């Protein structure tokens, strides 16, 4: 079974469901913990929705690339897009003094992403955002 899944699709919200289905078809036969599959789904959904919703000022079609690599002890995700420069790591960390409800209102999605991954790297290269996320098993 291949260890890497590479996908590219256009910045259309309707394609997102299809992309997540393909990802699950790739992950499910591999006897991974359901918590891990859930984490990959949630992270991808959050990141991809952000790109599609806020990444582009024009109405043109843009290509978004997703790569998932499974190693013995880790899952590595890479998302590449040519949208506006956006580094999710610059979003301040969760303000633990606030209640969960208050944090939810402030866009907890990216905080969930932060909490579910072990490492995250952002690069901007040749007009493209390159976001890599690692989850250690």
């Amino acid at each position, binding site marked *: 079974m291949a260890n890497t899944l590479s996908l590219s699709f256009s910045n259309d919200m309707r394609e997102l469901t299809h992309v997540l289905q393909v990802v699950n078809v790739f992950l499910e036969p591999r006897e991974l913990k359901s918590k891990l599959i859930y984490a990959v789904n949630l992270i991808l959904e959050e990141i991809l929705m952000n790109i599609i919703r806020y990444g582009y000022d024009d109405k043109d079609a843009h290509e978004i690339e997703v790569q998932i690599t499974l190693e013995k002890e880790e899952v590595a995700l890479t998302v590449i897009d040519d949208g506006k420069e956006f580094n999710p790591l610059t979003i301040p960390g969760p303000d633990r003094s606030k209640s969960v409800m208050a944090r939810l209102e402030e866009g907890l999605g990216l905080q969930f992403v*932060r909490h579910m991954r072990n*490492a995250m*790297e952002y690069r901007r290269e040749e007009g493209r955002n390159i976001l890599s996320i690692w989850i*250690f098993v």
Partner: protein
Amino acid sequence: MNQALIQFDNVYKRFGSNQVLKGANLSIYQGEITTVIGKSGMGKSVLLKHIIGLLKPDSGSILFQGRPLYEMTKADIDKLKAKFSYVFQDTALFDSMSVYENIALPLKEASSLPKGEIRTRVRDKMKLFDLEGIDNKYPSQLSGGMKKRVALARALVTEPEIVLFDEPTTGLDPIRKSAVHSMISDYQRRLGFTGVVISHDIPDIFYISQRVAMLDEGKIRFEGTPEEIQHAADEVVQQFIQGLETPHDALTGVATKTQWERKFQEAMVRLESQHITFSVISLSVQNLDEVNEKLGHVAGQTAVKNLASRVKERIGASDTCSRYDMNKIMVVLHNAKMDKARKFCIKLARELRVCDFIEGECPTGLDLWITAGFAEAREGNPLQEVLANAEAKDSTYFEFRIE
């Protein structure tokens, strides 16, 4: 710059034939930590005692918010003194009093607060300094670090606007020294007081101070930011700083900031003459405040020490790892392009677990958040530019969580 909160204007002070202060000028600004360094016996404590009126200048004046102390009435001075607190070199706890009584003393003496209110305030400070459950112990039953915490709690219980620290880490081991510095810096940020510290602890005081002044031959020879004093052209200042700086960072055992900067310059020479590439990695514990709050400042500093050790174990013999700030470890990786630095960070993120950092029982629900920036040096790049590139959040930025 705004008006100084406290200002020394040409202050002279003599004890018998010993002229200790010979025209000292110094500005202390509100909400900042100002550290006074200088050789022993040069009058640093004398300077501090002038601030709270324990000593009066022979000539010159001390101004508080622009107003000379000698113009103030006794009532004004008493009001002013109530804003100050003093942490003595030897903690100066009363051996015949319990921990609770020691901390409560300034409130009982200087305020007419009801008993219940005093109890609440003392309990709050005991909680803040992790001193709960030792109310009835006596100073002789406490460790050196614990005594310092009791002294800090006592100094802050009146919620003073200005706190004077006279060599607050004397007699402590490196981790506890660092923990006291971390505490001073942490509580200053939380409570917002103005701090004046007399200290020999270089480089630690550079991490916690906004301003550093050097007293030499009865005068303030240099006054500026930690960055300015470390790069001052004045030879006397440089010799003094280098003389106090240990060959290795006392807390972590890795190189000091000055040594790291020297290694960087050597690597730059090799890059320019032999085209040997090198990269810089900047690693910071982002949630040190959370660790301090949940496990105490000793645990916080232990985490920084252990991060330095874990990094040092993984670098080559020709690479250099140093402590660069209170929560920051800096690395020069030789023969390394950007990609090698990147792989090094990913390897760290993969291999480290929270138990590698916290000594004793592994805490549940506490993660360490570490950011790692990296940059490859280019020929002719000044150090500050490479560091700025490494830490620029808009280019490459790496963050990992250690569970």
